[in-house]
């Protein structure tokens, strides 16, 4: 077995992670999938621990991550908890228990495009918000200063 140089060698701990969906039924399906694919020892992550999952994947602790469906994967992306570009660069394999699109290349490409586009949109949106908030704050401060200076004078 060849291991990519940047991927840490196995140290007994499973190199597969599974992101648990919130619904019980979906969780059962995920457990069944893990068992059928000999991944029963995968490290489970609750949705509240998704930031830990991202940190550990980025640190190359896992080379395989299982999500229940595309919605679970995208939710992590919307919440800024998944850097799919970094995951892809480090060769992490992403699997879906219930892929809405059967061809894994299709949904992975789609997820990468969406992630890139979302990142650019967020950056632009954030910059505009910061500029607007800064300008409004300056105007509001000027208004406060005007009030403080003129209220005693007008009587």
């Amino acid at each position, binding site marked *: 077995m060849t291991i990519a140089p940047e991927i840490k060698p196995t140290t007994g701990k499973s190199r597969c992670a599974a992101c648990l969906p919130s619904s019980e039924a979906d969780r059962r399906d995920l457990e069944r999938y893990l068992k059928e694919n000999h991944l029963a020892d995968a490290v489970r992550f609750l949705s509240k621990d998704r930031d830990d999952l991202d940190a550990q994947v980025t640190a190359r602790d896992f080379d395989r991550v299982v999500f229940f469906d595309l919605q679970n994967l995208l939710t992590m992306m919307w919440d800024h908890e998944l850097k799919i570009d970094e995951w892809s660069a480090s060769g992490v394999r992403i699997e879906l228990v219930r892929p809405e699109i059967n061809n894994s290349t299709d949904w992975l490409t789609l997820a990468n495009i969406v992630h890139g586009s979302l990142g650019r949109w967020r950056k632009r*949106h954030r910059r*505009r*918000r910061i*500029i*607007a*908030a800064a300008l*409004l*704050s300056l*105007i*509001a401060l*000027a*208004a*406060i200063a*005007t*009030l403080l200076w*003129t*209220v005693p*004078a*007008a*009587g």
Partner: protein
Amino acid sequence: MTALPLLLLAPLLMWIVQTVQLRHYGLPIRWRIDTSQAPRSLRTVGRVVTQASLLAIILCYPALRREPTLGYYADLLPWSRTALQGVQGAAMSILFLCTLYGVWIATDCLRVSIHQSRRRWMRRLLLLVPTACFGALVEELLFRGVVMGDLLSTPWIPRTLAVGLSVLVFAGAHYVRNVKRRWTMFGHLMLGLLLCLAYLETGNLWLPVGLHAGGIAVIMGTRPFFRYRGPAWITGASIFPFAGVAGLAGLGVLTAFVVSIYGR
């Protein structure tokens, strides 16, 4: 009581001019003042007639009271330290609207997005101060200086009723034309109350003109850069940020503040 009948002549004149123009273009008569889906010139003439009739009322009213026009308005806008109330009014409404917009931006109810050409928004910003001052001055001279002043000087009308009627006339006047949204009426009622009480408490027009001009300046100045995402019942919409629940509450606080600071 001469101001209200005089004011009613304005929509009548506007409707007559609109009807004549519609007939000229061979279009059916509209019972409302409504220039939608009509030739551009009809809208332009409509605006000119509106402004001209409002200015005519402002100029004619003191003459009907047998008072010199300049003297009448000079009493309402005394050139003394009291004029600083105009600056304070503008600062108060600017502070109120900036706070409101800041909250909407932070909560993503307002999206920052330029939706006008650079030339158009530059022109708008360059003309912002004169437009806001002129618009506020005309409206205040008319609704507070003429209408409210007239109602307050009518002996058989109690002060509370005079204020109530002035608020209704001010709000109603913004809906004489056919408008996109009518639910913003509550915002205009609350704004009318603020401006009427500002006039009542100070006895001059500086504070209401300042409050009004500051509001127009912020709303018109930010309009090309903001898109409302709602919900409209909380944030208001388009040029009516004061018409949502938060805006109404803010206007209520501003009104209480004005009454407590300037109350005589």
